C-alpha cells in the first residue's frame, strides 16, 4: 500500500521505535504554545475570515464560508407558507437526531411533556455516532470536578463561560451513571473500576471509553431508549426556518421533507436546536471527520431570529485525520491512539512533540513540522507518522485489537496493519468550538428557544478537549430537555409568524448584500457536475 518513499521513511521510524517509545517528550511552555498557534493554526489566518454585516453579531469576524451562509437568502424568501393549519403540534420540538437531541428528548419525555424529534437524516446519523475516543468525567479518587474545570477552562484559553464549564464538569459523573443505567457499556476492570486514560490537555486520566466505539455505543443506546419511549421521530425532514409568535417567542419550525420537498409546519411551545456542527462546510478547504449533515444549520436558524453566536471565529482541527490512503482522507484517527502511547514522528523518525498537548497546539505543531520540510509526502498532500506499533510494544500484544478495533478495521480495509506499520496523519476539520450563545438553562436570548450540544457555544471556549464533546451532548442535552419541558408547562403560544424572514431580508438589502445562495445548507454538494 505504501509508496517506496514512505517505506524508506518507515525504516527510520522502525529503527528509532524502541528509543522513541521509551522517551517522555517535554511539554511546551505557555509562550511556546502561543507562538506555534499564531504561526500555524488555521484560526490565525486573517485572510480566511470576513466581518458579518448583518444580524446580532454584526461587526464581528467569522470564517468566510460561515459569513456567506449566515448572510444567504431564506429558503422561504418569496414563498412564505401558510401557518394557520400546523401539520404537527407538540410541547417540545427537538431539531436534530444526535446525542444532544436524543438526550433532550428522553429528559423532556421523562418530565411528562409531549415531545417530537425531527432530523434531516436518521436518528443517530450524527457526530456523536462517530466519536471514538471517549468521554471525560472526574470520578477517580485522585481527580475532582475542580481539576476537570481547570483542564477544560485552561485548554479553552480561558474564553469559556465559567458557569457552563462548572455545569459540564460537576454533572459529568452523574451523566456517566445515567448512561450506565441506560445500559451503555464502558471499559471496566473485573471489579467495575473504569479503565481511564489521558486525552490531550488532561491532567488526570479521566477518559472513559467503550473501546473506540464510545460515541456509537452511547448513541445507539440513546436511540434505542427514544424508540422504547415511543417518542415520535420524523426522519429525513429538515428544519428550514424557525417560527416565532406575535410576542417574539419561538413557537415552532417550518420543516421540509428531504425526499419529496413537501413543506410542513410544526407548532411547539418550546424548541430545542440540537443540530450539531459544521465540518461539511470544509472551512479553508480542509477535509473533515464529520458526518454528512454537519452543515451549521442550527446557527443559521437561530441567527435569523436574532440569537447571537459566540466564539464563531474558532474551529477545531483534529491533529490526527487520516492523510493516507486517499479513500479515508480526513477520517478521524482517534486521539485514544495517542492516549495509549503512540507518538508523532517525522519523516526522519524523530519524535517532535509530546503527543498529548491540547488539540489546537498539536495540530499547529504538526502543520509546523510539515512546513519545516520534515513531512511524509502523499500523492494528494502530506502528513507525519503516528507510530501505532508503539501501542502493543508498550502495553503488550493484543492491545490494539482490544482497545481500538475500529482503527484496526479502518486501515485494514486498505491493506495497512496498524499493529505492524505506522500511519500517516494530518489535521482534519473536526469541531465547532463556538456556537449559539446560551445561559445555564440552555436557553438563548430568544424566549423559548433552547440550544444544546455542538450547536451551542461557551462550553469549550476557543478549544475543546478530547472527551468533553460527548460529555457536552449528554450534560447539556439533558439540561436543555429538562429546562425546556419545565418551561413548556407555562407557555401559551400566540399567533404564529414568519415576519422575521422579511426583516432579515431587508437587513441584507440595506447592507447592500445580494446573496446568490440560500441557507441552511442541509447537505453538502459532492455531486460531480456531469454536464460541465
Amino acid at each position, binding site marked *: 500500500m505504501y509508496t517506496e518513499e514512505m517505506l524508506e521513511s518507515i525504516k527510520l521510524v522502525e529503527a528509532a521505535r524502541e528509543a522513541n517509545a521509551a522517551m517522555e517528550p517535554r*511539554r511546551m511552555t*505557555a509562550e511556546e504554545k502561543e507562538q506555534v498557534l499564531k504561526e500555524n493554526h488555521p484560526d490565525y489566518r486573517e485572510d480566511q475570515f470576513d466581518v458579518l454585516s448583518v444580524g446580532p453579531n454584526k461587526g464581528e469576524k467569522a470564517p468566510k464560508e460561515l459569513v456567506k451562509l449566515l448572510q444567504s437568502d431564506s429558503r422561504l424568501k418569496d414563498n412564505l407558507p401558510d401557518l394557520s393549519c400546523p401539520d404537527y403540534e407538540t410541547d417540545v420540538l427537538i431539531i436534530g437526531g444526535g446525542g444532544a437531541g436524543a438526550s433532550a428528548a428522553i429528559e423532556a419525555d421523562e418530565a411528562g411533556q409531549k415531545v417530537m424529534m425531527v432530523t434531516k*437524516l*436518521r436518528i443517530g*446519523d450524527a457526530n456523536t*455516532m*462517530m466519536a471514538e475516543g471517549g468521554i471525560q468525567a472526574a*470520578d*477517580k*479518587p485522585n481527580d*475532582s*470536578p*475542580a481539576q476537570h*474545570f*481547570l483542564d477544560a477552562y*485552561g485548554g479553552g484559553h480561558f474564553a469559556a463561560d*465559567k458557569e457552563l464549564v*462548572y455545569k459540564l*464538569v*460537576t454533572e459529568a*459523573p*452523574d451523566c456517566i451513571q445515567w448512561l*450506565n*443505567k*441506560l*445500559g451503555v*457499556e*464502558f471499559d471496566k476492570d473485573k471489579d*467495575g*473500576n*473504569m479503565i481511564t486514560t489521558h486525552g490531550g490537555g488532561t*491532567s*488526570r486520566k479521566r477518559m472513559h471509553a467503550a*473501546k473506540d*466505539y464510545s460515541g*456509537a*455505543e452511547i448513541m*445507539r*443506546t440513546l436511540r*434505542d431508549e427514544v*424508540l*422504547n419511549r*415511543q417518542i415520535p421521530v420524523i426522519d*429525513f425532514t429538515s428544519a428550514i426556518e424557525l417560527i416565532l409568535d406575535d410576542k417574539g417567542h419561538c413557537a415552532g419550525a417550518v420543516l421540509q421533507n428531504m*425526499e419529496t420537498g413537501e413543506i410542513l409546519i410544526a407548532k411547539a411551545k418550546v424548541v430545542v436546536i440540537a443540530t450539531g456542527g459544521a465540518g461539511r462546510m470544509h472551512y479553508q478547504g480542509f477535509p473533515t*471527520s464529520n*458526518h454528512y449533515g454537519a452543515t451549521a444549520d442550527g446557527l443559521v436558524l437561530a441567527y435569523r431570529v436574532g440569537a447571537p453566536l459566540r466564539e464563531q471565529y474558532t474551529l477545531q482541527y483534529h491533529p490526527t485525520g487520516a492523510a493516507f490512503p486517499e*479513500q*479515508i482522507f480526513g*477520517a*478521524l484517527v482517534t486521539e485514544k491512539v495517542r492516549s495509549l502511547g503512540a507518538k508523532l514522528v517525522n519523516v526522519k523518525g524523530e519524535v517532535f512533540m509530546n503527543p498529548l498537548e491540547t488539540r489546537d497546539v498539536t495540530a499547529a505543531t504538526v502543520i509546523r513540522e510539515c512546513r519545516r520540510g520534515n513531512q511524509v509526502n502523499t500523492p494528494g498532500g502530506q502528513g507525519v507518522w503516528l507510530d501505532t506499533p508503539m501501542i502493543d510494544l508498550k502495553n503488550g500484544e493484543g492491545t490494539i485489537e482490544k482497545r481500538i*478495533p*475500529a482503527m484496526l*478495521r*479502518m486501515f485494514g480495509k486498505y491493506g495497512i496493519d496498524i499493529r505492524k506499520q505506522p500511519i500517516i496523519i494530518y489535521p482534519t476539520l473536526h469541531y465547532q468550538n463556538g456556537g449559539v450563545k446560551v445561559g445555564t438553562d440552555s436557553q438563548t436570548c430568544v424566549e423559548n428557544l433552547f440550544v444544546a450540544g455542538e450547536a451551542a457555544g461557551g462550553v469549550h471556549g476557543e478549544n475543546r478537549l478530547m472527551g468533553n464533546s460527548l460529555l457536552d451532548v449528554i450534560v447539556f442535552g439533558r439540561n436543555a430537555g429538562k429546562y425546556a419541558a419545565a418551561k413548556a408547562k407555562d407557555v401559551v403560544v400566540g399567533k404564529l409568524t414568519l415576519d422575521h424572514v422579511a426583516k432579515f431580508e431587508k437587513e441584507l438589502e440595506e447592507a447592500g448584500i445580494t446573496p446568490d445562495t440560500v441557507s441552511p445548507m442541509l*447537505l453538502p454538494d*459532492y*455531486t*460531480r457536475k*456531469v454536464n460541465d
Partner: protein
Amino acid sequence: MEQMVNVFIMGKQYKVPASLTIMKAFEYAGYKLIRGCGCRNGFCGACATVYRIKGDRELKVCLACSTQVEEGMCLTQLPFYPLIKEIYNIEEVKPTEQVMMQLYPEIYACIGCNSCTNSCTQELNVMQYIAYAQRGEYEKCAEESFDCVMCGCCSTRCPAGISHPQVAMLARRLNGKYIAPACGHLADRVEEIASGKCEAAIRANMALSDAEIREMYNNREIEK
C-alpha cells in the same frame, strides 16, 4: 490519466476512477445522496450495499463509504430494511433467558445456515452472538456483537426472519446495566457532588483572577 473502472449502479453502467469508494462513485456518476449516506466513515450503517463482481457467483455485502470500487462491480444500496425493534422498559426487563423468548422468539428458529455471518459488513460472527443470545449469555453476546453498526445486511439474508442487530442491542443494554460490575468510585463521586463536598474547591477555582488561573493552569501537575 486516471485509471477508470466500470461499475453497474442498479444495473446501469458508469465509468468511474478506480481509487473511489462506492459512495464517492455514486457522486461521481451524478447522484446526490440523501438516503444511504450518513457518517461516511464506517460507524453509522446507513450505506449498506450488496454487490456481485461480473462473472463471480458470490453475493457480497459492504458499507459503501468504506469500500473501494472494483472493475465489474454490480451493486445496489439497501438504505432501509424493516428490522423488528421490540419496545421494552429497560428498568423492568431482567437479564434472564425469558426476556429474549418474549421479545425476539424467532431467534430460536435459527437453522444454523450462517448466512448472517457471511453477510456481516463488520466481519462479526453474527450466528455465534445469536447462539449466545439464545442461551441467555448476554455478556458474551455483547462482546461478540460490540462492533455492530446495525446496517441490517445480516437480517436481509436470514431465512428465520431474525433482526440480529436489535437482538444484540438488547443484549448489550442488559449487559451494560445489569451484568457488568457496578462502578464503586463512580457512585462515590456522584454522592460527593450531590452532598456538596466538591463545591468549595471548584468555586475557588472559578473565583481566581485571570492571571491567577493562568498561573495555576500552566503549572498544574500532570498525572503520569
